[in-house]
């Protein structure tokens, strides 16, 4: 036993006390730092968000870009400094504890063992009585708890599969909301009215043969190449094409296939003559034109946006800036209440903007976040509210088509996104290859309902009715999902890949593969292949439907298919 003087013991006690206080202070500081670390995300700081927002509004400003970098670096530094402090603090804490322990040990070891007497053992009788009492009390208490728990702790868990029940309520409500009205004459946008992949009318031919001319009403060679689809208003059909440094818009008589007029996509002041680098397979005329009663608008791969009347007279034209996009600019446009809606995806800028149909003036522009995509906007109505949906990366986002205000944004898919969203009366569907198909309940309080990665689209957009979601893949499979649960109802391998988006029309799904064969199946949960009809020409373009006639654009020709 080491003996220390009283003075030494006093010093030890003081050192120990200081170490103890130090340890407690460090522990409290660390707890605060920990709480801070747990609640703060360095990339969500208001300062960073603020400069990012400024940069989004002014993406060309190098000064702002530098500022974003500086604030970002500062936020990260601050975060990692806090981490370092906590990590170092934990060892300061240990060091303090060690000093405290050692000096307490010295103080404790300097004295003789304290010997104190315990009170006498309680007498046997009273100890027994007390312990028996404890035994009975515990048994009674636990029994009461067990009985009470049997009544109170009933399992509130639903049976498996109940998950979809919750949505029936919402679904019913949403189903009551008006969807976009369908016409059997006009087919104004890419994938039809609202760009939803649903066409009006009935009695369309289900069998034809391009090489043999069976049910081919007419066939017209389109002067320049284009991956865009035909759009129709009344008796007129519109297409675009590009090649040899020219961008063109074609107006055809839908009944005869005669080209009524050809207009230029570059013949206006400020037009860009530039042809940006892009996938040669895509070209400069991928976006589909949009048509209304008295105007047809088209956008090209160099950002030229033009608007003509139905007689081929230029209303206005402007260049939106040449988009830098490795796959080329591909987003088709929409027109909603005299506003041309343009989804712009380039390395230089992501946005959605609205232009006055009559003048071409910019009415609004909303910057978007995420990564660039090659999808097209879709117009839908949920809860009576018209909205433009963009299949973005990584979110599906909804905007007000009148003001451009973002309405909601939900997690969607990531990757090289070419497909647009599919919608029915209550849900939104997105998907892309190497990721999954995701079903969303739209709205501010929306959520992901289900997802599945068995069948995913490469280019073709999914299409849905209230019961089924149809997905045509890039590897030749077509799958039908239950829209509510995500269960695969059927799938079929059609051998050829699909780039053209499937269309639901006349209770059938029209699936056009890249070889030009149209596969027609019932638009329901049972697989029934009605027919497969060859066009005799490769095609990647989505067909158009109008008055019992189907219009398909092949690599070189436009076909009108009609039973009459």
């Amino acid at each position, binding site marked *: 036993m080491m003996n220390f003087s009283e003075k030494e013991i006093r010093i030890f006690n003081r050192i120990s006390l200081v170490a103890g206080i130090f340890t407690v202070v460090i522990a409290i500081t660390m707890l605060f730092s920990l709480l801070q670390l747990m609640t703060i995300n360095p990339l969500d700081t208001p300062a960073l968000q603020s400069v990012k927002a400024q940069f989004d509004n002014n993406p060309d400003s190098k000064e702002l870009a530098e500022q974003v970098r500086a604030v970002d670096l500062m936020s990260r530094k601050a975060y990692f400094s806090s981490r370092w402090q906590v990590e170092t603090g934990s060892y300061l804490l240990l060091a303090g504890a060690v000093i405290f322990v050692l000096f307490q040990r010295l103080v404790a070891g300097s004295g003789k063992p304290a010997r104190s007497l315990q009170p006498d053992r309680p007498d046997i009788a009273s100890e*027994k009585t007390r312990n028996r009492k404890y035994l009975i009390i515990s048994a009674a208490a636990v029994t009461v708890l067990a009985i009470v728990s049997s009544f109170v702790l009933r399992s509130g868990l639903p049976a498996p599969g109940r998950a979809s029940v919750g949505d029936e309520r919402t679904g019913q409500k949403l189903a009551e909301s008006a969807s976009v009205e369908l016409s059997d004459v006009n087919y104004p946008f890419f994938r039809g009215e609202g760009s939803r992949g649903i066409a009006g009318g009935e009695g369309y031919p289900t069998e034809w043969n391009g090489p043999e001319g069976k049910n081919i009403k007419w066939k017209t060679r389109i002067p320049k190449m284009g991956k865009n689809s035909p759009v129709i208003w009344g008796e007129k059909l519109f297409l675009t094409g590009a090649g040899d440094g020219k961008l063109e818009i074609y107006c055809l008589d839908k009944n005869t296939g005669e080209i009524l007029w050809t207009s230029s996509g570059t013949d206006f002041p400020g037009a860009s003559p530039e042809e940006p680098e892009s996938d040669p397979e895509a070209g400069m005329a991928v976006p589909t034109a949009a048509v209304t009663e008295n105007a047809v608008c088209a956008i090209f791969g160099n950002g030229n946006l033009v608007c003509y009347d139905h007689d081929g007279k230029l209303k206005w034209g402007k260049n939106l800036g040449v988009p830098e996009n490795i796959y080329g600019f591909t987003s088709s446009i929409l027109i909603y209440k005299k506003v041309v809606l343009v989804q712009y995806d380039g390395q230089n800028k992501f946005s959605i903007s609205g232009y006055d149909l009559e003048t071409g003036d910019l009415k609004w522009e909303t910057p978007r976040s995420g990564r660039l995509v090659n999808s097209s906007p879709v117009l839908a109505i949920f809860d009576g509210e018209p909205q433009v949906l963009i299949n973005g990366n990584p979110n599906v986002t909804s905007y007000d088509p009148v003001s451009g205000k973002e309405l909601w944004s939900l997690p969607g898919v990531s990757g090289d996104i070419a497909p647009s969203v599919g919608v029915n009366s209550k849900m939104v569907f997105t998907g892309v290859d190497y990721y999954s198909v995701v079903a969303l309940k739209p709205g501010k309080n929306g959520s992901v309902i289900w997802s599945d990665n068995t069948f995913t689209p490469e280019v073709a957009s999914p299409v849905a009715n209230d019961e089924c979601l149809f997905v045509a893949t890039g590897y030749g499979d077509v799958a039908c999902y239950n829209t509510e*649960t995500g269960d695969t109802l059927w799938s079929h391998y059609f051998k050829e890949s699909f780039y053209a988006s499937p269309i639901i029309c006349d209770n059938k799904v029209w699936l056009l593969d890249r070889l030009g064969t149209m596969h027609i199946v019932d638009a329901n949960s049972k697989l029934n292949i009605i027919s497969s009809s060859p066009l005799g020409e490769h095609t990647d373009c989505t067909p158009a439907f109008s008055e019992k006639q189907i219009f398909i654009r092949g690599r070189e020709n436009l076909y009108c298919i009609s039973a009459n």
Partner: protein
Amino acid sequence: MKKLKKFNKYIPYIVLGLLLIWHSVLYAQEQRFPRPEFEGDYTFPTHQFLNQRGPMWEYMDVAVLIGALTVASWLALKKRSRQGLIWVSLFSLAYFGFYRQGCICAVGSVQNMSLALFNESYAMPLPALLFFTIPLLFALLSGRVFCAGVCPLGAIQELTGFRKVRVPKNLERVLAMIPFVYLGLAVLFAATESQFLICRYDPFVGIFRIDAPYTMIIFGALLLLVGIFVNRPYCRYLCPYGVLQNIFSRFSVKHLTITPAECRNCRLCESGCPYDAILQSDPVKDREIAEKKWKGSLPYLLMIPVLAAAFAVLLYNLAPALSGVNDNVKLAREIRLEKEQGIKAVSKASVAYYESGRTESELFEQEQQIIGRFRKGAPWAGIFLGLSLGIGFFRLTVRDIRTDYEPDRGRCYSCGKCFKFCPVKINN
């Protein structure tokens, strides 16, 4: 020289301090910048995993365990050397704690054992099985010598507990029930493949490893500070393996004694045990009561099955709530909440689930299966708790008559702290 010899007593503590400092230096060198999240197309290099320790080293651990247990038994039972046990503690702390970083560990092996018992697909590694059984065999032979100085968790507390604050007896009894509950739940969670609770909340592994969460380091450091006054708080009020040691040690062939010869009932050792594990001898007047009056206590035996049944029902009812510790159940509940209340998925698990492409029906089905397993296992955990509590209380109603002061074989850690309080010495 004499003074220097006396200073030997403090050498283990100096070594302990050096160990911690050395460890802190290692930590400082290991500090790394966390992996950044690039948004571009940067491809992360593939993970390089260190080669697993060869089997020979694992059996080396087993050999060290047996060696340490043998030495600790000899020191506690034969040599009666408290100082020797402190050195064993220091060695175990350095080897099993800092060097092996708290793994493999007999305390955690309880979970491997239960997982192996209830899951055919899991083959328990032999070293883990040996780490589970060998300390229990030694408990049967010579008491809780494992706790005395071989367990690194016990060792770190033993080396830092030198003030003595007595916990009131009734509070001590209530707190001493916690390890039984902890053991029951740990076995249940491991058997249902939900969680290794003991490892997750091991308070000292944060100190043994250099990359443990800070919360664990804070918890461990604070527990050590408390342990200076209320000695071995983890062993007494939490350790689930201690429950098994407690049971096995009660049937030990030999056990440490307070006195090396005949007890003189001098009462000097009464305050010698900080764990209140010394059983007092009965006053002479009580010793005259020849009959133990077992008959009077027999009706109370009936309370044991009542307690077991009540606990079984209680835990059965709690099973769905308990199943919330399972990650899949937690995720299913989160997804359901998101859907029903329209809350956006925020947790990493939820985001990962959506990215994985699993269907909800699969997830909810799995949730039900896990709850089913909890429903099956929870009553057994309840029966264990009921029996433990019932037998514990019943034992107190049939007190043995004691003529000597002796250690409570279940609760005594064989640490030898009581040796110095006994005035009886043997002349060689």
